[in-house]
């Protein structure tokens, strides 16, 4: 075999500049049986980067549970899929665009949404919802305000234009994210199970096409390398690699792709994400166990004089790689024409297991497909718990430490802290109604979509608590899953499965690696206990900057099912005199809580213990109560504890109503009001139903306490503690972010 070597010879400096170790380079030579040329080296450096190759995470991710009767497609494809009955499947995945968003927040966030949409429609599913999970530094920093505004605009403009409702998400502000914001986007799609299409290049002799946008020098050594190295202060250097999103083209690509899949003309299809043409072609061949060859000179370009290297590694957006029977080419072209998209045949599927690239018929790369995908080196190591954990855990409150904290003032502080305050400023910029299926939109514990043509409803949420994971990686990981499940249960849904986005610092550092491994263990345990397998996900390492690593922040996107949408639990369904029940009983755990952070400015202690058995039992109890028609409305107890949950429940009620809380007198009220112990919900039940509800809960052996009632005086009372005016509290929640965003911003 001859490989054209018109590239300069590869030397050790070049190898190092490509982020490969000497060991890795030797492995490449062994796989090839010769030295790679420069183009091949570039290809390896991207495919073996952390972002594409999952070097540090792959072995650990294998421990996540990913099977179950509900799983139609587990990890490994462009997105996961689960069965929701009636022959339908839900396809979903989450992905990060942290570094691109740090460099250029608007385009970074927009192209993040674009990428996750393509991951879903490439499977043949029609996207029906978007969600996002965001982390920024504190809003008193003008650059943080700039990032926040532009990220939200980028997410909104892209999804709005394509016409997919953004129905939920979360935003947390903490100094830990100042140098490195997190932008995770999740997309959910639906299809008839029979239509599920995989990213396979099967059938030697079949043709390979590029569909969609032309290829420019976007993101060459962009996303993949950005995502595989820490953000240095001179991010200016990585600037030229920013990609511009084109949501209009995306919409055309979406419609054309679905039509193509429906027509049966496409055998396999995959979007070109990180490492563009290289990763999509090699992954499609790997899945099919075939080889693939194509000529880069046939790829439509946006710019003159692009080298094979640039074409192979370009991350231009809104492009798909399609494998089809060449006899059906006319059909393919008709569909592409209908949607005004370019579609160009660039090569074919082969049977020799080689990834072969030509330029004007001259061979420029010949690499065994599996060398690019399966042979990626993986690293596993055993590490000790970092020292910082011991000092955090040694925290214990001084006697009388809360004497000067007035509970209702603390509640007001919590409710208006940007992380807990109303996110209306954000979600009013997102179209959350388009497609006319949004039954519960942003602002509740979880979003609920009607599944048209059925009685069913789909519940969606995203959750994660980086501070918890920082303070105890195992518990934090497990609690993220538990909190997501509680969000779904609180709208009456049964949790089915998750996708995750694992945002961590540099995994080559021991303390970060420990956080990663332990958080993953927590996620895995919780997913097993709650029967919510992981069907897709994404790892984002190197989230650190000169101000240090971000909090380890796994975010969990969870999907649940409501059999009969009429039985959803919705905000605000309560009347004066209804009883408040605290299902799961009192808690008093303040370690690592929002109360400590927002009111006292401390990050210390450990997050609450994880009781997965109770999480499951109490969730089942809520669903049983609802099935029996006993619940008015419900809120899970999360950040800010009972006090905040009750306030949020109140904000959902008709204006004029209020709540009255009772807490047992024995301990100080702070812990009971603000403790964040898990597996808990506040529900309202009609006065007449109270005893039936109590009986049912007792039968299910769930600890429950009557904790107050709905009042008619538009006030928030805590018996023996004090009261606050509802509209004042609500206004402080609603105005917190808009007020902060009225201040000036800085793009640096």
């Amino acid at each position, binding site marked *: 075999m001859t490989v054209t070597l018109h590239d300069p010879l590869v030397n050790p400096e070049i190898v190092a500049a490509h982020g490969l170790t000497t060991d890795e380079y030797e492995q490449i030579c062994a796989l090839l049986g010769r030295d790679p040329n420069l183009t091949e080296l570039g290809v390896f450096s991207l495919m073996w980067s952390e972002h594409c190759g999952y070097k540090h995470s792959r072995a650990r991710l294998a421990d996540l549970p990913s099977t179950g009767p509900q799983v139609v497609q587990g990890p490994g494809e462009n997105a996961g899929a689960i069965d929701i009955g009636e022959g339908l499947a839900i396809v979903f995945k989450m992905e990060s665009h942290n570094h691109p968003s740090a*460099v250029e927040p*608007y385009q970074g966030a927009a192209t993040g949404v674009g990428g996750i949409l393509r991951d879903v429609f490439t499977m043949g599913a029609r996207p029906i919802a978007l969600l996002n999970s965001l982390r920024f530094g504190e809003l008193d920093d003008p650059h943080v305000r700039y990032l926040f505004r532009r990220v939200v605009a980028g997410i909104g403009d892209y999804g709005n234009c394509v016409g997919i409702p953004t129905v939920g998400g979360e935003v947390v502000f903490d100094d830990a994210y100042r140098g490195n914001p997190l932008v995770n986007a999740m997309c959910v799609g639906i299809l008839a199970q029979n239509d599920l299409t995989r990213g396979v290049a099967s059938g030697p002799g079949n043709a390979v096409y590029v569909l969609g946008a032309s290829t420019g020098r*976007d993101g060459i050594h962009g996303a993949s390398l950005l995502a595989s190295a820490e953000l240095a202060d001179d991010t*200016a250097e990585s*600037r030229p690699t920013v990609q*511009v999103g084109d949501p*209009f083209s995306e919409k055309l690509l979406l419609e054309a792709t679905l039509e193509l899949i429906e027509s049966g003309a496409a055998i396999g299809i995959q979007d070109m994400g990180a490492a563009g043409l290289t990763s999509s072609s090699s992954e499609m061949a790997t899945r099919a166990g075939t080889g693939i060859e194509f000529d880069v000179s046939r790829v439509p370009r946006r710019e003159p004089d692009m080298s094979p290297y640039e074409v192979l590694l370009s991350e231009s957006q809104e492009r798909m790689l399609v494998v089809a029977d060449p006899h059906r080419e006319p059909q393919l072209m008709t569909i592409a024409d209908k949607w005004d998209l370019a579609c160009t045949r660039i090569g074919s599927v082969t049977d020799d297991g080689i990834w072969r690239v030509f330029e004007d018929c001259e061979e420029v790369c010949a690499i065994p497909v599996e060398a690019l995908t399966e042979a990626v080196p993986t690293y596993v190591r055993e590490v000790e718990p970092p020292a910082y954990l011991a000092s955090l855990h040694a925290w214990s409150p001084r006697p009388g430490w809360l004497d000067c904290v007035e509970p209702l003032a603390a509640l007001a502080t919590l409710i208006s802290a940007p992380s807990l305050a109303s996110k209306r400023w954000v979600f009013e910029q997102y179209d959350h109604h388009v497609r006319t299926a949004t039954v519960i939109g942003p602002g509740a514990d979880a979003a609920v979509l009607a599944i048209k043509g059925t009685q069913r409803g789909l519940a969606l949420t995203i959750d994660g608590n980086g501070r918890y994971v920082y303070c105890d990686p195992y518990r934090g990981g497990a609690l993220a899953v538990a909190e997501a499940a509680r969000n779904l249960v609180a709208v009456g849904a049964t949790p089915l499965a998750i996708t995750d986005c694992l945002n961590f610092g540099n995994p080559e550092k021991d303390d970060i690696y420990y956080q990663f491994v332990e958080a993953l263990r927590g996620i895995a345990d919780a997913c097993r206990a709650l029967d919510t397998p992981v069907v897709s996900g994404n790892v984002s390492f190197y989230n650190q900057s000169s101000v240090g690593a971000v909090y380890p922040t796994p975010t969990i996107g969870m999907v649940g099912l409501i059999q009969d949408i009429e039985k959803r639990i919705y905000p605000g369904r309560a009347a004066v005199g209804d009883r408040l029940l605290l299902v799961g009983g009192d808690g008093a755990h303040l370690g690592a809580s929002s109360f400590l952070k927002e009111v006292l400015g401390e990050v210390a202690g450990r997050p609450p213990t994880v009781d997965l058995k109770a999480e499951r039992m109490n969730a089942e109890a809520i669903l049983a109560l609802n099935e029996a028609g006993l619940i008015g409305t419900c809120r899970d107890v999360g950040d800010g504890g009972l006090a905040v949950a009750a306030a949020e429940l109140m904000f959902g009620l008709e204006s004029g109503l209020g709540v009255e809380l009772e807490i047992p007198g024995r301990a100080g009220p702070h812990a009971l009001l603000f403790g964040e112990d898990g597996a808990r919900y506040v529900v309202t039940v009609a006065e007449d139903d109270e005893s039936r509800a109590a009986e049912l809960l007792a039968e299910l052996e769930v600890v429950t306490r009557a904790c107050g009632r709905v009042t008619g005086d538009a006030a928030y009372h805590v018996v023996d503690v004090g009261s606050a005016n509802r509209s004042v509290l609500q206004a402080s929640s609603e105005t917190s972010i808009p007020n902060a965003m009225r201040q000036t911003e800085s*793009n640096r």
Partner: protein
Amino acid sequence: MKARVEVHIQLKPGMLDPQGETLEHALTAIGYEGVRSMRVGKWITFEIEGDESDAVESQVEEMCDRLLANPIIERYEYHVMREES
């Protein structure tokens, strides 16, 4: 001292300009053939009043860098036209 300022902003060369591309197609479709390399940028005009006339240029440049343009993806040009006063 009073001056009229014009700032022109465009995506850097080589960056995809979806608006320009779409508009170029649309013009071709309605019969204006031969239109190429269309880019849609911004044109910002304003007046500025200040004491030291020398400082205006550097001030405008700073404004462009910090707020008017996004130097990461855009390039800009400005012209300052001093007015008699």
